């Protein structure tokens, strides 16, 4: 394989593998939120606030992978 194609492969793989973790994490967060809502529907406000906070934190990890793959694509 020539360096150019390896570069594109690296960009794609960084994006896809890097986003696996946040995807799983978001799924777990959603699962936990729905479970919590089912158990205690009155605490909806607090649960949703925390869910959004943690979801954004998890998403940030995906953004790191995105940045790395953009750098790889643009600079390397």
């Amino acid at each position: 394989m020539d360096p150019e194609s390896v570069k594109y492969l690296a960009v794609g793989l960084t994006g896809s593998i890097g986003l696996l973790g946040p995807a799983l994490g978001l799924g777990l967060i959603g699962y936990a939120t729905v479970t919590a809502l089912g158990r205690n529907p009155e605490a909806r406000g607090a649960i949703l606030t925390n869910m959004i906070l943690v979801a954004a934190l998890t998403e940030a990890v995906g953004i790191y992978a995105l940045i790395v793959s953009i750098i790889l694509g643009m600079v390397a």
Partner: protein
Amino acid sequence: MSRRGCGLVGLVVLILFIVGLAGGAIGRGMGIDLLPQVLKVPSLEIESFFSGEPIFLTDGPFPITNTLVASWVTMIVATLFALAATRKMKIIPGRLQGLVEMALEGLINFIESVAGHKNGRRFFPMIATIFIFVMFNAYLALLPVYGPGIHVTVETKIETKDAGTIVELLVHPIAEEKDEVIALIKTADGSREEVKAPAAGEFEYSVSVDDYVSEGQAVAVMMGTTDNGTEVAAPVAGTVVKLEVQRKIEENEQPVAKIDTGAAEPVIVNSPKDKLGELEYHEGVAVGQEVSIDDEIAKLTSTPPFLRSASTDINMTLAMALLAVVFIELMGLTGRGFKHYMGEYINVGELFRGMRLLFTGKIVDGLMASVTGVINVIIGGLEFISHMTRMVSFAFRLFGNMTAGEILVVSATFLIPWIMAMPFYGLELLIGFIQALIFGGLTLVFASIAVGHGSEEH
């Protein structure tokens, strides 16, 4: 809104969607091209990914970037907003005052619910500042004047660093598509003929303006697509009026010229870092010319936007992260006292106890305590590292989210103009708020953990 009004809005949206679909990049990809040039949305061109583009004092030691200007705008807008809200304060608040009071009350309730009453009041100014600044940055950046709204033209000089003879000029004009007009020739009867590029790629002119060419004479040589070079012949005889295509700098630090200084290897003059645009060689610069140190050989013209979201500059978010981390550590230091604070990082008490036990002859106890002590020292180091990596994650989280949002909106606009970007604007409103909440909230949580260990709260 009445049912009829809804239907009307829906119809307009549908029409815009269809026109956008046909006229945008997707439509162009399918071969439909109905929009006039003015309405076309250009593809995304990030001149510099990590920081803003310098727009004032570009050649000086402290260039003013468009992101810096945007952060000043944010400060001014936030200050004016606060002044307007507090100008005529009443017991029974008006609309604006009521809004601000409600927002601040929500904020202080949130802070106190995390950090407790006493610490919450101490943290409030810092956390609220971070929150308001990040949110105003994000929201102001959605205005149409930001990003590609208003452009400024910036000219940068490219100077030689060594004396010598120019061996090669490395930047060639680029034809971006097949049949692009690369030159205009005025014939004897006054009509103008276009010379078109046979393929997309780099080429080199073999004539200059005002040269007379006979029919079939080479005007330019195409490179890149074919290895040996294809000659582009003049379709008619006449005078060259205009050379259309510009030289473009498309990469950071692209080589501009090669200079023979007498050393074994020729020295290469690069274009500046983080600056793309159109390059124009200085008049008279040609192969074989002698240059001395600091001779201006070329001029780079770029048109960065006047304002660009301040949070899409890593320097900005890094500065805020630095501020937040210093704030957290300072709160830890003042809240728990110097001894306790340093004890978290340099945890050698247990190690010393183990050593003392070892020397007084209690071998087994001493060994146990020493091992625990070594582990404690390592944990202290890890603690220090984890505090410092907060800075990086603070900076990259905000930077990444804001940059990703901007790219998302621009890409959506590029694919299907007008309609496609609208849901993403809504998303950006949400993300701007959440990121402000996260930046402020995490600072708050870390600060209350930092003071929390030895405190009497709750």
